[in-house]
């Protein structure tokens, strides 16, 4: 279970070079992090009662890339991974998501993603942060991953390969994670792409109760030991795709093992 230290104390203990006004060189602001993680903390501890397994596999310092599956029609998965890194890690760490471009175009979302380090997913941004020994959070399924419908919630769509080239180029260990429960929290039955275009987002998910508001379903995230792929990042597509397949297999296994363990728990320990 998550530690119950105050969010302010945890943010204070982040090993990031904040200046006297509590802002780092990327514009990440302690004041905004406290507000952001206070809201996420409520969701993490009380609403979704997130269980994080294998946090000990995440390096406590240095560059690293958390790579996982999308689960749920809005960014609940990413938000809870960020929360798990702050609330469960010792010392607490700030994971920095590689966000969809539209998030920086919309008012308020632009401000809050900028102040909490959730930058647009550009290779230039990723390389700079990794070379600065930050921790990135990447969902290689992209927006296609969040568009998964309820009955597809445990499947994985195609992974992009950009993250692997960047990891190899910057010699960054990849920590695969499997996220469970998001599909049940936001049971998407249809995605409205036309409406999404109108409001400046890729799509608007529709649930049986219409609004894409998450239900208080218990969520789980399972971290696995890091994987390091040697190379320059300039290798042939087949080489990169084979490495990506290894990460995808690992994530797939984490999801399956997580589901099996959950099934076992629900059935009172029976196989």
């Amino acid at each position, binding site marked *: 279970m998550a530690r119950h230290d105050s969010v302010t104390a945890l943010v204070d203990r982040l090993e990031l070079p904040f*200046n*006297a*006004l509590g*802002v*780092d*060189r*990327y*514009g990440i*602001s302690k004041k905004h992090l406290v507000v952001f993680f206070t809201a996420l903390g409520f969701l993490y501890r009380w609403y979704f009662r997130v269980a994080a397994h294998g946090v000990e596999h995440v390096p406590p310092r240095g560059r690293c890339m958390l790579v996982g599956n999308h689960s749920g029609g809005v960014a609940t998965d990413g938000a809870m991974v960020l929360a798990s890194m702050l609330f469960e890690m010792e010392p607490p760490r700030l994971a920095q998501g590689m966000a969809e*471009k539209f998030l*920086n*175009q*919309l*008012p*308020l*979302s*632009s*401000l809050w993603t*900028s*102040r909490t380090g959730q*930058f*647009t997913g*550009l290779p*230039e*941004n990723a390389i*700079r942060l990794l070379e600065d020994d930050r921790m990135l959070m990447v969902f290689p399924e992209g927006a296609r991953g969040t568009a998964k419908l309820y009955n597809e919630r445990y499947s994985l769509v195609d992974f992009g390969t950009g993250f692997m080239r960047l990891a190899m180029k910057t010699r960054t260990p990849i920590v695969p994670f499997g996220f469970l429960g998001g599909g049940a929290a936001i049971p998407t039955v249809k995605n409205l792409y036309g409406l999404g275009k109108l409001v400046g987002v890729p799509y608007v998910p529709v649930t049986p109760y219409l609004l894409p508001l998450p239900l208080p379903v218990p969520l789980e995230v399972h971290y696995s030991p890091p994987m390091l792929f040697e190379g320059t990042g300039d290798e042939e597509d087949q080489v990169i795709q084979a490495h990506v397949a290894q990460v995808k297999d690992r994530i797939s296994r984490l999801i399956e093992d997580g589901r099996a363990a959950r099934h076992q728990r629900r059935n009172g320990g029976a196989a």
Partner: protein
Amino acid sequence: MKVLVMGISGGIARLVAIGLRERGHEVFGIDRRPWPGAPRGVDVYGVDLRKRAAEDIFRRRRPDVVIHLATVNALTAHGEERSRINLGGTRAVFEHALSHGVEHVVFVGRHTYYGAAADSPLYHTEDEPPQALGAFPELADLVAADLYAANTLWRNPKLVTTVLRLCYTLGPSRMGTLATFVKPKRVPMVLGYDPLFQFLWEADAAEAVILAAEKRPRGIFNVASCNPLPLATIVRQLGRTPLPLPEPLLLALLGRAGFPRLPRGAVEHIKYPILVDAGAFRAATGFQHRVDEVETLRKYRSLFAAGELP
């Protein structure tokens, strides 16, 4: 060395001239604006850079180094006049430099060259092209001047050319884009956006230009401090109040009811950051700012308190 400073009456240019003089260099300058109280030994020629009289100064005084600080932004000059100053002036500087034996030209451009856009990388490096010019056509002549200066690197390799892309500055001159923008008590912002701004204390900016003149690095270099700050933080630290308005309302109010007369494209610059990676310049010259971003704001605010600002 003999140094000719173009635009010598400007805020940073004066500090550059004084700094060079203190280090024993011979300094003279060209500016249509006067510099009352210019230090003894610093000649200021009140001629137009694009006129014959300016070339005569090159011919007569034979400078070794020319520092070109005579460009203007969209807030201080408009339309054709701005283009004549920026592009016409820059062309004249390089042509005269090549004709009259100048060894080194330092072109002091602006970091706004890179443009502000939602999908830009957070930090820009020198090899990136300008972006989002379509949204802010008033920047085109400054960008063209920068590119013209930069292509001298291959057109005339014998002339050492240093192109600096300098971030915003704050200081006692009270001049510059950021200083102008944060002047009112209530500073307009776009609701829901709070871009990062990089800025240097004026004396540090002048030191960077002096180092460029002395070390003569060839190439294009970003010049900035280490840490940027969000605009709302800058405004509050300066004792001003941010006034966040929805973008359509702000656009409608520009130039009216006491709101600044900004070009529409400039609104992108108060939505998205333009940050530059200044590592190459530090490596080439050893430049290190003396006043950090927090201290810069404290010092600038103390100017307000001392009644030094109108």
